[in-house]
């Protein structure tokens, strides 16, 4: 036990003395979150929009004023025809168009309902979602004001239309994606490099000649990265809560548990890679090609898995980050409990245990 602590201490010294690695370990998650944070920034102010008002009555004017008064929008009225609106969208001068049909107020008074068309440029899905949400909120607010001043409940229904990208993939997908990517990278790459380094240096032989057990070598190599990864996990969670307004909706404990499982899986993969690799470069290339690409492509946060060919869909099942991504989404974004993620948790458990056992056995065999 004492030997183990001495070894783990030494591993930490390696990590802390290597500025470049340290920068990568802690800089990477922060840079990623900040980067995605700006892309995701949900405060989109002064979006240029047009209002095409074919009714021009008291209600539409009031609603238009209310929209114009909000800090989110910069309203221009001068566009009238549908073709003008389309041209403006194509030129990219406006982000959204609001179209009031004729006889808007009359419809509202007689049928208690009226429809307003909200058309957004969804080629930038994040912006489109955000601004349509703003406008929906403003309209809902307006609805309740109307209902207060009228005997019957009146309702204006926004009819939202997303131009160019009706599916709206993206947005809160990024944080879970970044988490999966960063943890995978730190764990897999760093462990494999750390072990191969000892092989390259020749110190591995010395360790094997010593009475120190191979299992202990593995544990001491993994421990620093496990701890660093958990720290990273909290850094990401805090950053995304502060800057991206993305709090953990479900149980933090469950999320941390799922993350540790994923971290262990990644560490074991790193271990396995290090057994095959002879040089640090090979280990690095192996983890980049072998792990980062599948993580990026087959996790589902950049490209939806449902749209992939069957072969790739099947392949994605063996990518650990795919399951981890689901856990984060369910626990962090949707606030679901254990019963919703037990399947993903068990898959990751099986993966981490079998990979660890496999690498441990391979590790021993190679060095006998």
């Amino acid at each position: 036990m004492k030997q183990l602590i001495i070894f783990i201490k030494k591993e930490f010294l390696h990590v802390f003395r290597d500025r470049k690695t340290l920068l990568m370990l802690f800089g990477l998650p922060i840079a990623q979150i900040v980067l995605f944070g700006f892309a995701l920034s949900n405060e989109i102010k002064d979006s240029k929009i047009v209002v095409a008002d074919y009714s021009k009555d008291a209600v539409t004017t009031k609603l238009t004023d209310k929209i114009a008064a909000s800090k989110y929008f910069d309203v221009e009225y001068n566009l009238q025809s549908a073709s003008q609106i389309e041209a403006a969208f194509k030129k990219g001068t406006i982000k959204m168009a609001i179209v009031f049909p004729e006889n808007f107020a009359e419809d509202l008074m007689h049928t208690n309902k009226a429809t307003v068309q909200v058309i957004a440029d969804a080629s930038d899905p994040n912006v489109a979602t955000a601004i349509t949400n703003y406008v929906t909120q403003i309209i809902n607010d307006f609805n309740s004001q109307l209902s207060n001043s009228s005997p019957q409940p009146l309702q204006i229904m926004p009819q939202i239309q997303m131009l160019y990208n009706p599916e709206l993939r993206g947005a809160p997908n990024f944080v879970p994606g970044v988490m999966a990517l960063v943890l995978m990278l730190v764990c897999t790459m760093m462990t494999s490099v750390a072990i191969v380094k000892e092989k390259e240096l020749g110190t591995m032989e010395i360790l094997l000649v010593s009475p120190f057990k191979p299992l202990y070598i593995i544990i001491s190599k993994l421990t620093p990265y496990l701890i660093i990864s958990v720290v990273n996990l909290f850094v990401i969670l805090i950053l995304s809560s502060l800057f991206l307004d993305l709090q953990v909706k479900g149980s933090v404990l469950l999320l941390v548990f799922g993350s540790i499982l994923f971290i262990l899986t990644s560490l074991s993969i790193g271990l396995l890679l290090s057994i095959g690799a002879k040089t640090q470069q090979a280990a690095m290339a192996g983890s980049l090609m072998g792990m980062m690409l599948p993580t990026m492509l087959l996790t589902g946060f950049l490209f939806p898995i449902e749209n992939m060919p069957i072969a790739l869909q099947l392949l994605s099942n063996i990518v650990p980050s795919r399951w981890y991504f689901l856990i984060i989404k369910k626990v962090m974004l949707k606030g679901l409990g254990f019963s919703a993620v037990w399947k993903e948790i068990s898959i990751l458990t099986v993966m981490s245990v079998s990979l660890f056992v496999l690498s441990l056995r391979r590790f021993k065999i190679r060095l006998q």
Partner: protein
Amino acid sequence: MDAVIKTEKLTKRFGNFIAANELTFEVGKGEIFGFLGANGAGKTTAMRMLCGLLAPSSGKASIAGFDIYTQTEKIKRNIGYMSQKFSLYDNLTVSENIRFYGGIYGMTRKDIKTKTQSLLEVLQLQNEAKTLVSELPLGWKQKLSFLVSIVHDPEIVFLDEPTGGVDPVTRRQFWDLIYYAANKGVTVFVTTHYMDEAEYCNRVSIMVDGVIAALDSPANLKKNYGHENMEDVFYELARKAKRQGD
């Protein structure tokens, strides 16, 4: 003679290739035993079997009285090893390296402290205890590496081409350290390419194509083969080799 290394027909096969073929020899306590051979002759394979890094295919061997098949853990506690590659951690300081290697052999904090002091004294490196190993000149690293390999006072130390790539002056100093260790009763088992170093050994064995072609003191070998120096003895034996070096 008290034998601390004893082998009998120790053999290692890799498929059809016999890397080490029926090696039988003994090394006495406190002896400096040179293990010579051209590249690919099987030196490293033999040494790795003795250290427990490789499992033998057949034959018997005991190290410090322990069987290499069944008592590897006990053997590991009683041997030190210095590999061909320089084997200290560059980004740890001199004393951190000593502490680490002492630590994994289960030495107590107090023992490590006194040991560190005496090692640094031998090397006259007292002022460099807190220097990163990467900042030391190669010669010092090599010597430090050797002393670290015997930090836990092993009975036997295995040195695998310890002086590769080192200048003659440092090599000489390195051998002074080997004598220092041997005088303290440590048995030294050393492989080398340099024939002048072979002269420093008490006894040498010369391996050719996986078998021990000769084994005796340098003086006897020179006499028996009728040569002035070890270089010529070695050349006469080694040129019969059929294997290509790696």
